[in-house]
């Protein structure tokens, strides 16, 4: 299938205040949130982006929704470059691409009733008012909020986290989008509620034929959502493969450490030391070459000299490592 979203060498730098020395040298230090990211999201696919805090995954999601502009590189949506979207075409894009938020307690305007929150996208999209009630109702049905009209006049603080996340999803789905970005959609929810939201995400993707990108720090959860996973480290994709491959046969040393670190609910799990050293370096001054080399147990001189490219190894498996 053709790709719906294509990212080509996308770079995003956030400037930081410069020191006098840096001004004198003419240096422009920046936090390199994204440092050359290239991948496609196929039509109807579900892709997970996994990494630790500060790896750039949230920035990536924002760029794909045109909530921020890349410093370099290009992103296309349905074949059209996103940089050029303005006016009516931007509004059209907004109708097609939606976001599910991490914190449902913050994602709804506390002064809006639940109905008001879900009807808002319809107002913004200029949908005929006569259709509002029906479309809101069908969005609520999609997210399985039983007796939905009981909620319409309530305010967000009167609902539980799980209910709020369903309302947030109803709002995202009310315009009938094709593309959904979900940024840590369950990390703020209790375990017993999580599973329901995950199942719902999977269900709406199948029934509505959505293309989806899930951003998460939790490899264990991602397994239940996506067939394909990208692992990011310091603004770069280090591994891109089917999720089961990532979990069972990680190839990049960082992915190996990440998979090994995930605790499992089994008292007999391995407690071997992690194959990783030190801490994540300052994103303003990442190491030369491979940015993981200072923590990698297998680092060699070449890693410092040459930045490893993301290369396909097996079918659908890409790794950015000189060892591979």
């Amino acid at each position, binding site marked *: 299938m053709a790709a719906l979203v294509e990212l080509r060498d996308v770079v995003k730098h956030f400037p930081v205040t410069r020191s006098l020395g840096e001004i004198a040298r003419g240096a422009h230090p920046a936090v390199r949130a994204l440092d050359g990211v290239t991948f496609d999201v196929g039509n109807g696919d579900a892709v997970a982006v996994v990494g630790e805090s500060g790896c750039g995954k949230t920035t990536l999601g924002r760029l794909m*929704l045109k*909530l921020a502009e890349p410093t370099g590189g290009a992103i296309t949506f349905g074949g059209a470059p996103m940089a050029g979207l303005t006016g009516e075409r*931007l*509004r059209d894009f*907004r*109708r097609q*691409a*939606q*976001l599910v*938020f*991490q*914190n449902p*307690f*913050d*994602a*709804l*305007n*506390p*002064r*809006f*009733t639940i*109905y*008001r929150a879900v*009807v*808002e*996208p319809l*107002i*913004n*999209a200029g949908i005929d008012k006569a259709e*509002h*009630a*029906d479309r809101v*109702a069908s969005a609520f049905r999609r997210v399985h909020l039983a007796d939905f*009209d009981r909620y*319409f*006049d309530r305010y967000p603080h009167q609902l539980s986290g799980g209910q709020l996340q369903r309302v*947030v999803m109803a*709002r*995202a789905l009310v*315009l009938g989008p094709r593309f959904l970005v979900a940024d840590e959609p369950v990390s703020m929810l209790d375990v017993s509620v999580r599973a329901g939201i995950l199942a719902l995400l999977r269900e709406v993707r199948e029934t509505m034929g959505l293309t989806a990108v899930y951003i998460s720090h939790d490899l264990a959860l991602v397994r239940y959502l996506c067939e394909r996973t990208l692992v990011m480290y310091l603004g770069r994709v280090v591994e891109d493969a089917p999720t089961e491959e990532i979990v069972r046969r990680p190839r990049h040393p960082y992915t190996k450490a990440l998979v090994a670190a995930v605790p499992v609910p089994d008292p007999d799990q391995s407690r071997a030391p992690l194959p990783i050293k030190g801490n994540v370096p300052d994103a303003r001054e990442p190491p030369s070459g491979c940015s993981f080399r200072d923590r990698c147990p297998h680092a060699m001189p070449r890693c410092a000299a040459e930045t490893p490219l993301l290369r396909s190894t097996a079918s659908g498996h890409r790794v950015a490592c000189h060892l591979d």
Partner: protein
Amino acid sequence: MAERADPVTPARTSWPLLPVLRRIVAMPLKDPFAFTGILIYVLFALVALFADQLAPIDPMEILFTKAGKLAANVPPGAEFPLGTTNLGRDIYAQLVYGTRSALAVGLSAAIIVSTVGTIVGLVAGYFGGATDAVLMRIADMALSLPFLPFVIVLTGFLGASTSNIVLAVALLLWPNSARVIRSQVLTLRERAYVEAARVTGASAWRILFVHIAPNILPLSFVYAAIAIGWAIITEASVSFLGFGDSGSVSWGMMLQDAFASQALSRGQYAWFVPPGICIVLIVVAGFFISRGYEEVFMPRLRGR
């Protein structure tokens, strides 16, 4: 679906400003401080409104005793509740009429300060970039002018009129509210529900006025209440220093008259204590109201 009749919908989609306004009006009932503040305002407003009835004597009229002598420095009594000035004017009447000019100065300054402060704060905070930089540099400049000296120089040179005092106060006070509102907008702008409005295609102005402004409104009221007090104190100070509007009766003018005519050494407390108490009451009412609003609204803005 069927039972959700259409007439319900307008209430659900109404602008969230209305509930906010309702809460702003209902709030004083919850907070004793704010309630006292509002009560003081209402009392002074009534005094200003019915000044003619409350004080039948013209405050500027020079009074004479029955013997035909100037009724100067008459001690408080049945005829003149607070006595008379050294020029034979009724102090009580001056006090009552002074309410009018105090409220006029306070309210006009408050309206200008909170309007300008709110708009500048909203625009600078939301749009950021060059707009923000320019507006905030102007605010910094206004804040680095010494407050009272500036008002004195301005009124001293431009002429001593109430409107010049209000202008000077407004020129120097708006940056305070603009700064605070801006920083509030900056945090609100990062809130997920504001981002959500962007994703669902809301325009910048719609986000600003539908999603952000209603949260800012209580702050505007707080700054208005504080500005009322500041303006009245400033007017009093400027009048006291002799740069006031000589055509109007104000508390500051009364204090200046008392000071200049040696009322202090004569121990004419009834002349110079009441105007000061009136100023304290009206200014403290503003403080009380702002405290009340902060207690009720600010935790909500900060929390969650």
